């Protein structure tokens, strides 16, 4: 799957699509491939304040349970509830319907610490 060019990535494989001050967050195609079939996602409740690097939630695949980390600081303003019934969206459409949370950013400069698509692809 080609990596969309409008995304930014953390070194822990979360992606962000930043639109004004809202960052939509998911995990990369590379990450879902390494995890294998996703069985469950545990995501924060709306309203939670997160610092960049905080544990955002957990993702459980048939192989392992992994932590998810907030790529930017801010307040969780939406959670993808579709994943409760269809966690496979993370595998099938990691950059689209498999999104996990939307964060209202409190530190816009966080975006500058992330990798662009080309840099992420070159690293992983």
């Amino acid at each position, binding site marked *: 799957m080609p990596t969309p060019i409008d995304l930014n990535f953390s070194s822990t494989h979360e992606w962000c699509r930043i639109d004004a001050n809202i960052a939509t967050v998911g995990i990369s195609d590379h990450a879902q491939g390494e995890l294998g079939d996703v*069985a469950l996602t545990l995501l924060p409740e709306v309203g939670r304040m997160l610092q960049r690097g905080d544990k955002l939630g957990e993702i459980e695949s048939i192989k392992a349970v992994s932590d998810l980390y907030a790529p930017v600081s801010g307040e969780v303003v939406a959670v993808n509830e579709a994943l409760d019934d269809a966690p496979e969206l993370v595998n099938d459409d990691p950059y689209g319907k498999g999104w996990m949370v939307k964060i209202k950013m409190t530190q816009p400069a966080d975006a500058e610490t992330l990798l662009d698509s080309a840099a992420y692809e070159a690293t992983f």
Partner: protein
Amino acid sequence: MKLTIEPLLFELSKPGRSGVELPACDVPVLSISDLLPSEGLRSTLPLPELSEPEVIRHYTHLSQLNYSTDSGFYPLGSCTMKYNPKLNEEVARLPGFARVHPDLPDTAAQGTLEVLYSMQEILAEIGGMDTVSLQPAAGAHGELLGLMLIKAYHDDHGQGQRCLVLVPEAAHGTNPASAARCGYTTVTIKSDGRGRVDMAHLRTLLTENQENVAGLMLTNPNTLGLFEDDIAEICAMIHTAGGLVYCDGANMNALVGRARPGDMGFDVMHFNLHKTFSSPHGGGGPGSGPVGIKSILEPYLPVPQVVKTDGGYRRDYDRPKSIGRIHGYYGSFLCILRAYAYILYYGRERLANIAENAVLNANYIRVQLQNSFDVAYNELCMHECVFTAKRQQRERGVRALDIAKRLMDFGFHPPTIYFPLLVPEALMIEPTETESMETLDSFISAMRQIASEIETDPAIVLSAPHETVVHKLDEATAARKPVLRWREQHK
């Protein structure tokens, strides 16, 4: 006879069938509704109805589906699935041991207490420790006890602020879990290019957290099957920083009789009797994870501890600084007894043969398979070796999981896969000392055939297993939509 999936008892049930015929009741019959309140009664109870031979055959068929060290080679890395000698079972069934009641006074259980006391002494000598508590019921329970002792030691010495436990990247997953359970925060030490503790990173962590390091947990040999050759220096650094060093003894099969964690500088360790000392492992449980300690930790040991006095053996509860109880009565006694029989069977001189042959067998497999699969760190290993199927995954789309499934077609239990985590597509093989060269050769030949199939016919590997009772399972659906119990509509 070809084995097939065994139906559930519910599916085999026929209304009205039963295993026993009871004689007519010879006392007045009372109605159950007169005896119990109506809200406690139900009109239906769907229990299976079968005859005795049907039940016996059902369970015998299930037992035939088992795979164990009694039926074949079981190279499950990190688990030490060695053969369990039947002599152990005979000893554990001696009525004086098997039927001893835990509430007997010490004076009436001298033989049992002698076994426990002797095991404390024997394990202390094997580990190079000063004394041992046999109480923990498993390895992770031993880890928890070890950390509780470390915490008690620091608290007793006015060092309660020490809140960090350092754990190398290659540690067993239970290590950080035990530390967290004990209230510690874990800090991961990186591995270096040789798969060992990165000494520069360790030095940095110690400098940054000087007053806060409670200790370090280390498996030696580590989970890559490599001996941590800087261990003396690592222990010295932790001691200088005021911390204590914990040895996860899960890999003791590589060392037993040849090297002692106590001599390397460790302050506390656990043994897995169900690994190194051949008591049954897994479903047959319980396990046993005795903890060995240096004398500085002795005041904090859990009660009771078995002691020898002029008047015989007794359980000592008079330990004012003890952390208290961690197990009802005294540990997993029959498990300890099996391990005791195993150690006495080998004796002091021959115990080292265990480690020697375990290491030899692992290196034999490593060298015989190094042209078929890439070895993660290709050097002399200890009791287990780790391969990576990264190349096969990249070039042929065949993953470690597929290789493991294909091995089942050859009649072998698969090795551990995807552990240790720092090796991508890991296949971790631990043959143990009990296997003959013929068994190792037939395993090697199966692995070589799989390697060649990956090149010529990957589909046969990707769709494996073909010869087992159940074929490839849909693990994703099983995890996403688990069916946890049988219901009438499944019939």
